[in-house]
């Protein structure tokens, strides 16, 4: 298993380097001037030229790349042209909130989607199956921003059950920062009031984000289970008198979820992208709004850093997906 993981990590490194090179070159095509962004709106051409020289933006591109590579090797992501703060600091403040939102959304999607997919397959072409197929189509079709606003209107404004925005109420003091995730830090700090408040704030954004991926997981699981149910071993085990629930949830499901696991891995990436809208509507303090701001202000360093970071997260998720595949089907661990 360790060899398998190391091999996968080894394969990820050149991919990440490739991503670094391509992103660095592509960002040079973005029509923006970091020196102008730094200097501010009222800056004169002389002020901008001075900053361009100070920060080396006037040097040859290969020289700039060399300097950047050196910084990355020292885990220095540089400084934001917009906020003039270290990018690593900005990301460290925001990434835990984004990961928290994505992980909870994914848990919701998987926790609800997989059983529903199995249920739909077992009720193939019956009323429940039709209903779940409609819900699946809706999940893919409904725009996240529309769903978010509707949930806000119903649960925050009309019923008053859940908070409208943010990750913690004004009146709730945040827990001591350890991981940056409010949920984890609340548990570590023993701050159960903060944990409850954070969970209440998390419900609407997580449900909004989970809705689309849940639909996808239901569809993949349903298809997988339907296919597995046609296999001879299922007929055999049925004939042998295996308990139905054990047969379905242990043997059939295990043989059905390979595609679903792949899909979950892919969904992680799409949740990062979808999270941008959800974070904006719920004022969730994640990395999405930071990225959008960087694009709008032409903040190249931040765009580069965030792209690299998301690439690294994506690579890590792919490795985890491969490991899970290996656990489900150990034969895969021996493949080169």
């Amino acid at each position, binding site marked *: 298993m360790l060899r398998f993981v190391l091999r996968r990590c080894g394969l990820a490194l050149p991919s990440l380097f490739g991503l670094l090179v391509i992103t660095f070159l592509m960002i040079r095509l973005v029509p923006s001037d970091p020196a102008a962004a730094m200097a*501010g709106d*009222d800056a*004169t051409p002389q002020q901008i030229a001075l900053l361009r020289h100070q920060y080396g933006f006037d040097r040859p591109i290969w020289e700039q790349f060399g300097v950047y590579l050196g910084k990355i090797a020292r885990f220095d992501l540089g400084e934001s042209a*917009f906020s*003039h703060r270290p990018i690593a600091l900005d990301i460290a403040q925001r990434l835990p909130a984004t990961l928290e939102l994505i992980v909870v959304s994914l848990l919701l999607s998987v926790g609800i989607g997989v059983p529903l997919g199995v249920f739909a397959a077992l009720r193939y072409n019956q009323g429940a199956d039709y209903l779940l197929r409609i819900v699946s189509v809706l999940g893919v079709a409904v*725009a996240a921003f529309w769903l978010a606003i509707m949930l806000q209107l119903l649960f925050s404004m009309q019923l008053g059950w859940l908070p409208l*925005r943010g990750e913690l109420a004004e009146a709730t003091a945040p827990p001591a920062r350890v991981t940056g995730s409010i949920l984890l830090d609340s548990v570590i700090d023993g701050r159960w009031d903060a944990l409850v408040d954070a969970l209440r704030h998390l419900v609407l954004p997580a449900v909004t984000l989970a809705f689309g991926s849940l639909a996808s997981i239901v569809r993949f699981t349903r298809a997988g289970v339907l296919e597995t149910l046609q296999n001879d071993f299922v007929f055999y085990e049925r004939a042998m008198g295996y308990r139905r629930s054990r047969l379905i949830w242990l043997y059939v499901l295990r043989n059905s979820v390979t595609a679903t696991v792949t899909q979950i891995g892919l969904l992680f990436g799409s949740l990062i992208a979808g999270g941008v809208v959800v974070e904006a509507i719920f*004022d969730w*303090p994640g990395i999405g709004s930071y990225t959008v701001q960087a694009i709008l202000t032409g903040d190249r360093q931040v765009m580069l850093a965030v792209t690299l970071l998301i690439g690294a997260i994506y690579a890590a998720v792919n490795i985890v997906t491969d490991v899970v595949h290996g656990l489900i089907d150990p034969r895969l661990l021996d493949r080169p």
Partner: protein
Amino acid sequence: MSAVPPLSRRRFGVLTGGSLLASGMRAQAAEPNTFVSGFGLPANLDPHQVFDVPMQALMLNAYDNLYRYEGDPPRIVPWLAQSHSVSADGLTWEFNLRPGIRFHDGSEMTADDAVYSFRRMLALAMAPAAAFLPILKPDKVTAPGKLTVRFELNSVYAPFFAAIPCVSIVNPRQIRANEKNGDWGRTWLASNTAASGAYRIDPASYRPLEQLDLEIFDGHFMGWKDNTRPVSKIANRPTQETSTRILALLNGSLDCTDTNLPADQVDRINASKIAYVQKDVVMRTFIIRMNNTRPPFDNLNARRCFAHAFDYMGFINDILDGYATRDPYPMPNTLWGCPKDAKGYDFDMAKARTYMAKAMAEGAPMKRPIEFHVQSENEQCVQSAQLFQSNLAEIGVNLKIVGDIWSNLTRLARKPETTPDMWVHWVSTYFVDPENWVGQMYDSRFHGTWKASSYYTNAKVDALLRRARGTISQDARAPLYEAAIRQIMQDCPDIWIYNSMQLQGLNRRVKGRRFCTVGQGQEIRWITLAT
């Protein structure tokens, strides 16, 4: 360049859903003496690096300056300085500080601190320095006495005094302790504070653009006699989406929004028991720029054709619901130096056709596609372009709308060859002087800056503006600006549309607010929260 995106589906969502559910909205309990502000935050916390409206708002609460703008109309009043004097030749200015002013760390403020602040601002050479760099050298800011700051200018610059409130006085002791490689504490102050203002920044609460808390500073030099029940904490919690902003205002979790509420939301907000919309006329002009160096805009008749083809009142009344004032001048019509009797351009398609024919007779390529760049994320910019596109189509002009972003537009505007045919933007009040508008927009020495992006050149106007800049007396300057503006209006380099009315949602518990166009009414020290 991307195409113009569809308009505001998010707002459509909130309008449809909101009208169904608004009647049953529930209030969210507000913290008793905490003012929760939805006004935007600046890019960082260093007032010498960033200078825009959100920074002006932060400066008004966290920092102090030698003089400050107060009231409506804005008056420049003594603040840290209790008086000032200027030499007869207009080159030497002296400011006398009040005694006994303390920074938040308890140290006493002296003239040396003001000297350090101006030198730091000049050394960093970022946005607030633009007004000072051409006329002030760092070594010409000195402290001849413990409480006296002296400025010796290279040349006479009348707007110098008007620009003094742009510079915050910072605490050099805190900054020097955090300097790295001679960076003037730039990295440190971007997330920290070295101030003396009425409210003290809590750096631990800071998340750029998202969150910042400020606590009342009891030892502020102005004292608190003029407000016996001031706000004890300001919690800045800007919202990103218009829909969330309005809902947060309506459920009581925000005490104020930004100042750009959509006009079509005013009635609904005013109908609520929790909030209302405060309307204030600000000095913020909305202008369509024409690149005067590029055909057909290098032709006077062509420019006049475009100026007559924009439906000014249709835009103001139908799209903005009347929440703007028609302003046909290249600066706010409420400011001195504006020739009130000068006639601006009106919406008249017959005149537009006439001028178009004249322009074409002179060889202007009126039929070529014209690119109109807009900030895609700004609805009003897009709407103005769409209206103009429809008006121009009537006379056969093909206006192509191009989506863009602000940072790119300011980059493009740095050279006449890259500046778009047309683009649209506001000019806010950075300092209250005609120089902020007409001076920096139409003197050819400012070519290369976004404010002067029409690349208009007229030697007579240059001479008038330079004389106005070099004349100290406002009475003597006013006729110079009036003459310059008359000439500029004749030459029609741009299309001047309106002066803004800001729409800000306020919780009804907010009392005692004072408005000033500089900072858009965000000075919290006057506010009391009703219980």
